[in-house]
C-alpha cells in the first residue's frame, strides 16, 4: 500500500471536528468528573449517555441476532448475503456500548464488578451479564471472517463445530437483555410518564428491537452498496421490508392495546411536551409501516431506505423518551444534555461508522464476488459520504 495523504472532503472535516470536540469532552470527563462533563443531577441521574449510547446502541445492534435467527435457526438461506454485515454492526455496536458505559459509569475502572459481585435481583446485573456474554458470542460469530481473511482453516473448523449452540445462545441472550433494558424502568412507576410506563415495557422493548434490527440492516445495506459500489440486494431487502411492516404492525397494535387497557388515552388530550413527543415517536413508526405495505414503495430503493431511516429515528425517539424526557416531570426537574455529552455521543457514532467502513473494506464482509467488483476506483467517489453518516 502506498502512503498518500487523505483527501479533504466535507465529511472528513465534519468527522475531524466531531472527534476534536469528543476528545476535549473526554478530557473534561476525566479531569472534572461527571459534574464537569454532563448536566446530570441528583434528581436526574441518567442522561444521554444511558438513553442513547447504551439503550439505543444495544437496540440498533439488534440486526445481529435477528438475522442470525432468520438465517441459521429458521434456515431462510436467502438472507445469508446480509448476515455478515449485520453481525459486524452488532459486534461494533456492543463494543461502542461498552465505550459509552466507560464514560457514564462513575467508576469505569469497576466495570467488571457485576461479574464478580452478584445481585440476581437487579435488572442491571442481568443486563451486565447478558451484554458481556453476548459481546463474546458476537466476537466468536465475527471471528471466522478474520480466519478466512488470513486462511486459518483449523480454527475455522473449530468455530464451525460450536456454531449452532453459539447462535442459539446469542438469540437467547439478546432476547433477555433487549427486553431487560425495558425492565430497568419498571421500578420507576411514579416517575415515568404514563404514556411510556407500562408493565409490559420489556415486551415492547423486545419487539421494537427486532423492528429496528431489520431497519438497520436495510439502512446499512443501502449505505454499503453506495460506499463499495455493490449492487443492492433489492429483492432481499424488499422481502425484509415486508417482514418489517408486519413487525411494526404487531408492535403498534400491542402498544395500542397497552394504552387502552391502562386507560392512558385521555392523556393525549393534554397539551404537554410528552404528548407531542409521543405523537412523534408513533408517527415515525406508523408512517413507514403504512408505506412498507405498498409494493411500489418497497420496489424503490430510495423509498425503502427512507422507511428504514424513519423506523430508526422512531426507535431512537422511543428510547430517549423512556430514558430521559418521559422522566423529567416525574423527577421534578429539567434535563438538557451538555454540549460535551452530545460531543461524546456523536464521536462514538462517528467512530462506529468509520470502523465499520474500514473493516468492510479489508475483510470479506460482503459476498466474495461482489467484494472483488468493488475496486478502489469506486470507493473514491462514494465512500466519504458514508464514513460519518
Amino acid at each position, binding site marked *: 500500500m502506498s502512503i498518500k495523504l487523505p483527501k479533504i472532503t466535507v465529511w472528513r472535516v465534519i468527522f475531524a471536528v466531531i472527534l476534536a470536540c469528543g476528545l476535549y469532552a473526554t478530557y473534561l470527563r476525566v479531569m472534572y468528573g461527571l459534574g464537569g462533563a454532563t448536566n446530570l443531577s441528583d434528581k436526574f441521574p441518567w442522561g444521554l449517555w444511558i438513553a442513547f449510547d447504551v439503550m439505543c446502541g444495544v437496540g440498533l445492534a439488534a440486526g445481529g441476532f435477528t438475522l442470525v435467527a432468520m438465517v441459521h435457526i429458521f434456515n431462510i438461506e436467502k438472507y445469508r448475503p446480509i448476515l455478515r454485515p449485520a453481525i459486524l454492526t452488532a459486534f461494533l455496536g456492543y463494543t461502542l456500548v461498552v465505550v459509552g458505559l466507560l464514560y457514564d459509569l*462513575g467508576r469505569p475502572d469497576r466495570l467488571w464488578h457485576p461479574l464478580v459481585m452478584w445481585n440476581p435481583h*437487579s435488572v442491571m446485573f442481568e443486563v451486565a451479564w447478558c451484554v458481556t456474554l453476548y459481546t463474546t458470542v458476537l466476537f466468536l460469530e465475527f471471528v471466522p471472517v478474520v480466519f478466512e481473511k488470513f486462511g486459518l482453516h483449523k480454527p475455522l473448523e473449530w468455530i464451525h463445530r460450536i456454531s449452532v449452540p453459539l447462535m442459539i445462545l446469542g438469540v437467547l441472550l439478546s432476547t433477555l437483555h433487549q427486553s431487560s433494558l425495558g425492565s430497568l424502568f*419498571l421500578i420507576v412507576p411514579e416517575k415515568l410518564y404514563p404514556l411510556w410506563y407500562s408493565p409490559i415495557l420489556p415486551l415492547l422493548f423486545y419487539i421494537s428491537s427486532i423492528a429496528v434490527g431489520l431497519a438497520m440492516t436495510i439502512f446499512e445495506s443501502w449505505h454499503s452498496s453506495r460506499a463499495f459500489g455493490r449492487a443492492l440486494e433489492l429483492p432481499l431487502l424488499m422481502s425484509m421490508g415486508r417482514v418489517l411492516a408486519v413487525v411494526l404492525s404487531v408492535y403498534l397494535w400491542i402498544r395500542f392495546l397497552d394504552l387502552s387497557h391502562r386507560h392512558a388515552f385521555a392523556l393525549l388530550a393534554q397539551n404537554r411536551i410528552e404528548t407531542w413527543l409521543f405523537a412523534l415517536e408513533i408517527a415515525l413508526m406508523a408512517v413507514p409501516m403504512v408505506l412498507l405495505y405498498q409494493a411500489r414503495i418497497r420496489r424503490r430503493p430510495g423509498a425503502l431506505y427512507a422507511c428504514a431511516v424513519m423506523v430508526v429515528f422512531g426507535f431512537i425517539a422511543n428510547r430517549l423518551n423512556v430514558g430521559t424526557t418521559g422522566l423529567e416531570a416525574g423527577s421534578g426537574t429539567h434535563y438538557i444534555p451538555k454540549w460535551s455529552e452530545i460531543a461524546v455521543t456523536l464521536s462514538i457514532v462517528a467512530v462506529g461508522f468509520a470502523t465499520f467502513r474500514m473493516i468492510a473494506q479489508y475483510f470479506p464482509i460482503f459476498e466474495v464476488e461482489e467484494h472483488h467488483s468493488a475496486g478502489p476506483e469506486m470507493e473514491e467517489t462514494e465512500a466519504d459520504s458514508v464514513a460519518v453518516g
Partner: protein
Amino acid sequence: MPKAILYDSTLCIGCKACEAGCAERWGLPYNEQIAAEPRISAHKLTAVETHGDRFSRRLCMNCVQPACASVCPVGALQKTSLGPVTYDADKCMGCRYCMQACPFQVPTYEWNSRLPKMRKCNMCSERQIAGKLTACAEACPVGATINGNRDELIQEARRRIAEKPDQYYGKVYGISEVGGTSVFYLSAVPFEQIGLRTNVGQEPMPETTWRVLELVPDVVSTGTVLLGGIYWITNRRAEVAKKEGR
C-alpha cells in the same frame, strides 16, 4: 428487632441541630452556608425543609424492602436486619441505578469527584449496632426526631394521633408506603403539603422488577427447546431436500 425513626413535624422547631449532628457523625463540614442549603446532597445527608410555616425533615427512609438495594447490580447496598440500608463504597461502580430507582429521590452523588461515591443516610448503622441512638435523634432538643424499635414507634405515633386528633393529620406516613419504611412522619396537614411524595404505591418497589426477572429461567429453558427444535426441523428439511437432489 428492627429500629426506626419517628419524626413529628408538629414538634419540629427548625433549629437544624439534626443536620449538625448528622454532619459531625459523617465527618462532613457544616457551617452557615451549608445549613442554608435547602436540599439534601452528597455533603448534606439530612435537611430540614421549610414549607410555609412548617418544617419537614428529609433523610433516607431506609425502606423495609428498599428499591435501591434490589437494583444495585453489585450488591453495594444492603438492607440490614436492624433496619439501616447500608452502602459499601468499595463495591459501587457508579451506575446510579439506585438514584433512578429510589421513589423518594434520596441517594445523592459526588458529581464533581474523579472517584465519586453515592451518599445517603444509613440510619447511623454502626451506632444502632452499638445500641446508641442515631446522631439526629440524639441532637434533637425537642424530641421531634426519636429513634427506637419500629413496632414501638408505630404505636407511639398512633397514640399521639389518638390523644390529640385535632393537632394531627390522621395518618402516619411510612407504615405502608412502598411496603413500609423505617422513617415515620407525623404532620398537622396532609403529607404532600410538607413535601412528601404521596403518589407512591403500597407495593414494595422490588416487586415491580422481580415479577419479570423471575421469568428469566423460564425464558431461557423454553427458548432453548424452541429454538433448538426449530433449528432441527428447518435444517432437517434442507438435508432431505439435498438428498432428494432438489
